[in-house]
């Protein structure tokens, strides 16, 4: 029982991290960036190259890979979204062009690293004895992953609530035109949001690669839909909601697997999502907290 709670929290922390970046551009700016999962994957490969090729310690490779992911995010914005922004249906066309870029990223990864599943070299994370907690075994990696997720969540909340960039972002979310009139550089604010969002997605990718030792060009697919579900479950644009929903989905999935078997996992999870949306259309913390803050 205790072990399943740990499994759920661990899985949930990865969902939460992935969704956190996703929700920054989706929930706040109303842009659905379908290449988020591809950035997640690329960052994992970048970290693998830094650790395996350049022999950097993982503590240096993780932030570096996140920065590279952020830069890919800037590229994404510049190529897939910005040229379309002036159009009336820019959200839909942006969605399609980000899907195109996601396909390109996956094809590039396939060419560069091949289709096989790769893993970080053994001993990337120093293996200590698992730490006993509540009658369960917790590995250091699991503790670090949950810790990093919480840390990044707190810093992002602080950034959006209390910095100038955060205020600009909220203004853009409210109305890009009004923000522009008030002197906000809208393109720059959106680019910054993409950088942060992709860096978070990248960090999630590296942690995922470390946790499950499975880095492959199609690894993003296992979190793509879940991330979307988590955003909606948590309440659009609510970052605390995304984190809460991420952990909730992780725990819920683990318990469905343990009680009903894995075949039921997605069916029951998405049925629960459906139910939440029927009963509480705005999601768990659905006051769209960010916009009103």
């Amino acid at each position: 029982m205790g072990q399943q709670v740990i499994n759920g929290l661990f899985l949930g922390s990865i969902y939460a991290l992935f969704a956190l970046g996703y929700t920054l551009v989706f929930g706040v700016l109303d842009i659905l960036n379908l290449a988020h999962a591809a950035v997640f994957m690329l960052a994992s490969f970048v970290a693998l190259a830094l650790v395996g090729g350049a022999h950097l310690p993982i503590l240096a490779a993780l932030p570096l890979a996140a920065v590279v992911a952020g830069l890919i995010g800037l590229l994404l914005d510049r190529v897939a979204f910005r040229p379309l922004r002036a159009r009336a249906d820019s959200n839909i066309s942006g969605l399609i062009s980000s899907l195109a870029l996601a396909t390109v990223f996956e094809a590039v990864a396939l060419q560069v690293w091949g289709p096989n599943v790769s893993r970080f070299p053994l001993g990337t994370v120093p293996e200590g004895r698992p730490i006993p907690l509540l009658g369960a075994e917790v590995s250091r990696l699991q503790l670090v992953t949950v810790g990093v997720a919480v840390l990044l969540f707190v810093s992002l909340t602080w950034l959006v609530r209390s910095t100038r960039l955060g205020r600009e972002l909220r203004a853009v979310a409210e109305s890009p035109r009004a923000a522009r009139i008030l002197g906000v550089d809208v393109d720059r604010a959106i680019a910054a949001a993409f950088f942060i969002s992709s860096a978070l997605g990248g960090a999630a990718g590296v942690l995922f690669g470390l946790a499950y030792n499975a880095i492959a060009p199609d690894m993003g697919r296992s979190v793509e839909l879940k991330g979307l579900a988590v955003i909606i479950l948590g309440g659009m644009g609510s970052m605390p909601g995304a984190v809460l929903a991420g952990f909730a989905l992780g725990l819920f999935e683990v318990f469905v697997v343990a009680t009903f078997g894995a075949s039921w996992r997605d069916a029951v999870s998405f049925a629960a999502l459906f139910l939440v949306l029927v009963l509480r259309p705005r999601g768990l913390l659905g006051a769209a907290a960010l916009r009103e803050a």
Partner: protein
Amino acid sequence: MRFSGRFALVVMSAAALAAGGRASAETVVKIGAALSMTGPAAVYGASQKAGIQAGVDEVNRSGMLKNVKLVAVFEDDGSTKEQGIAVFQKFINKDKVAAIIGPTLSNTATAADPLAQAAKVPVVAISNTAPKGITDIGDYIWRVALTEAQVITPALKRMHARLAFKKAAVLYGNDDAFTQAGYNVMKGALEGLGIPIVGTQTFAKPDRDYNAQLTALKALGPDILMVSALAENAAGIVAQARQLGWQVTIWGGNGFNSPAFIKNAGPASEGVYAGTAWYKPSAEPVNQAFLKVMAARGVDPDQFCAQAYTGVLAIAEAIKLSGMKGGRDDIRAGFLKVKNLPTPVGTFSFNKDRDGDHTPTLQQVKGGKFQIVP
């Protein structure tokens, strides 16, 4: 421009004719190889490609087929049914191959093989191990791979004699014909031995987290965990089981028979058992020759490579037995006569169900390598 383009074409075809004319005595027999170069089964596809190319080159070099020259055409089936069908259509209608080797996964074979059966193109399955739904598609579908039942049932019996386990748990992929078939065979083999299955859990091919399933099974206290999975999932399952501090005996199906499994699972793979169709250290001359050929190519062969090579040998033998004729029906007629053919996997025959027939072995990971359990 238009004229000169056409002129160039004429010159080129003339040159091609001349070139063909010089080698007039040579008949080219095309073999289409539909292999998973991408997708979840990509780890097997690369190995199979190396085995087929080596087999084709060796047959041509040996001169056993006199004036018949084998040429392999490779296509990626993407580990999916849809792409597998497209590749088969290309082989049958465009490349006009004499025989098809593949596809890598049983799942793909169930969808693509009926096309070849309808077009009367012989297919040699080199890695489809689902007991049902492959060779029973029709009389043009043959297989050199042993089925899961042919490998697992005798190997598990040997294993039980050694370890006398009493309670089993099973974890299998339920979205793939091969892993599902592996599960059915494991279940049947355990029932045959009178071993109760205390728990059964499933996963899907794209899954990377198996902690929940493993934790649930661990709580039931089995003394053997049977896993039916492709190598990519298998590595994650074994690594995560050991991370949970679970030291149970693990038995893997055919999907474990890949160096990729040991590489990705790392030290967690130590002690894992699997049944295998190929006894790598076999001293038989044909096996030693095969190992030498692969070493010269810089390939560390696995079971899939050996079976792929065997597939080419079976086709070559069929061509020889039908009097050096490489038509589609000649090859099929030749298959009927293939008996006791020396191959890397052992002395090989097709049985009356067109399935491969030779003796399997039990192996265990020791020191980062599969070693034969005597």
